[in-house]
């Protein structure tokens, strides 16, 4: 059951900021715009935590707190006080009433989450309940680099995807774009002047609307120390320069946890088909490896018992292709799945040069493979 957090504040702005900051977490945020309403909601809903403003009309936070402490049912409800007044006398006064913590406005969203997380067990909202984006969904990527050529290279490299690539040449402009548009991922160059990538990263983390926006750092391939520092700072990953479009694509997929299995796997009539594409590369191998076991388990769970590995599109039975096929065959064997490989005669000959493939069943077409597995 979700945690209930009640925010009592006469400012709609603060209530909105609180609700946005807690949106990524599995909790229900209840609102009240003054102390009287807050007490009524608390009495009815029995929240796990109350975020209470100090200065409010009708009934101020101090009086709300006093009434909570004299209510048998609500006496133990933890309260975090939000106040624009950090004066010693105010702090001492509210501390005497037994608040769990207090937060001085202005505050950053991450600070609120951190304080709330000390009192209640905040857990990320179950990703399974939210629709996972697919590789072929429109994704908005913002490239932040003072060299326009980098954004152009990324845009050209991703031209065969439905992804939109926009660009900004300095952090302030990038922050404005992130506020204005629905941006899914930011690529920020570590070579921006005055540590601009770090400034942008911190500013994004400080805003409720962008606090969880993933940011990848771009760095020259050999700048290992710079990359390590960025990862320590919390960047979601590193894209190296010179830009490799396949690498960017793979990192975007991984960072956004995009659904890509449909590109390589098809299930029908109790058969799982693993189809390797013509443009096979390390990124494809990684994606297939990630999805393979769940896909095999899925076909077994559905009553199926056959795997067809389709190498019909690959240009050559290179070592990485063979290694991936062997990995798939071994995983299928663990589940007692029967398998066959579809490929041309030329690929079949190349496969035969590897010892592990000697027992494989080869077919020239999907239908022939089906017949072999009957």
């Amino acid at each position, binding site marked *: 059951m979700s945690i209930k957090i009640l925010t009592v504040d*006469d*400012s*709609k*702005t*603060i209530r*909105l*900021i609180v609700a*946005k900051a807690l949106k990524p977490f599995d909790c229900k945020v209840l609102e009240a715009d003054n102390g009287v309403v807050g007490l009524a909601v608390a009495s009815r809903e029995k929240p796990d935590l109350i975020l209470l403003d100090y*200065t*409010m*009309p009708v009934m101020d936070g101090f009086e709300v707190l006093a009434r909570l402490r004299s209510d048998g049912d609500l006496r133990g409800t933890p309260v975090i006080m939000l*106040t*624009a*007044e*950090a*004066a*010693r*006398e*105010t702090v001492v006064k509210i501390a005497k009433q037994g608040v769990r913590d207090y937060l*001085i*406005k*202005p*505050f*950053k*969203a991450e600070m609120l989450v951190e304080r709330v997380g000390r009192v209640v067990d905040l857990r990320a909202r179950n990703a399974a309940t939210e629709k996972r984006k697919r590789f072929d969904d429109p994704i908005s990527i913002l490239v932040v680099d003072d060299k326009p050529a980098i954004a152009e290279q990324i845009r050209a490299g991703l031209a065969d995807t439905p992804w939109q690539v926009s660009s900004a040449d300095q952090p*302030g402009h990038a*922050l404005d774009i992130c*506020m*204005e*548009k629905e941006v899914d991922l930011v690529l920020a160059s570590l070579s921006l002047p005055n540590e601009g990538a770090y400034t942008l990263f*911190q*500013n*994004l983390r*400080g*805003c*409720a*609307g*962008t*606090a969880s926006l993933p940011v990848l750092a771009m760095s020259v391939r050999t700048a290992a120390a710079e990359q390590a520092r960025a990862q320590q700072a919390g960047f979601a990953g590193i894209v190296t320069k010179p830009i490799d479009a396949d690498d960017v694509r793979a990192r975007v997929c991984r960072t956004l946890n995009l659904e890509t299995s449909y590109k390589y796997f098809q299930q029908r009539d109790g058969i799982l088909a693993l189809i390797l594409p013509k443009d096979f590369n390390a990124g494809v191998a990684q994606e297939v490896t990630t999805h393979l076991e769940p896909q095999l388990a899925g076909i077994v769970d559905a009553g199926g018992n056959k795997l067809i590995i389709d190498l019909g599109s690959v240009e050559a039975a290179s070592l990485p292709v063979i290694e991936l096929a062997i990995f798939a065959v071994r995983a299928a064997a663990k589940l007692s799945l029967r398998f066959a490989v579809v490929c041309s005669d030329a690929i079949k000959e190349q496969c035969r040069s590897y010892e592990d493939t000697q027992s494989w069943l080869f077919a020239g077409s999907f239908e022939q493979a089906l017949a072999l597995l009957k």
Partner: protein
Amino acid sequence: MAWQIEKIEQLTGEAVEEVFRSMLSMEVQAEAPAPLPDDPAGQMIGSVGFIGGTTGILCLFAGVGFARLLTSRMLGIPLSEVDEGDMLNDAVGELSNMVAGHVKSRLCDGDASCTLTIPSVVRGQQLRVEGPAQVTRRVLGFRHGQDHLLAEVLIKDSSAKKL
């Protein structure tokens, strides 16, 4: 009185910079105060009073266009989603409250105990705040890019009987 005015002026400058940095992720630069440029949508004033050892009022002035940007940043929503009514008023009021709260906290720690009032917001054209003769006024100017903001503090002269 003189030390209070100087202190409040200094604290107000610090408070505006801190609130903009923390809540809006924006840097503002202090500049010489000057009338705000004309904004066809009008101007807004967010004001919060303080009463006690020090009595006065702190007002933030901004064009409506800049106020919309501040609201957008504060709430983390696109500019196009900023509601021209309550949302804008509430955000400007809350910003004023935070700035006044920052000033008040440090004043109280300096033995000039006071209480804050609930924020209020006024919208219109060519707004200005008038005070009686026994009031000392300080105006601070700030700039963010092409946008400007004024913070005005009116402090009641401790020798005067009424503000």
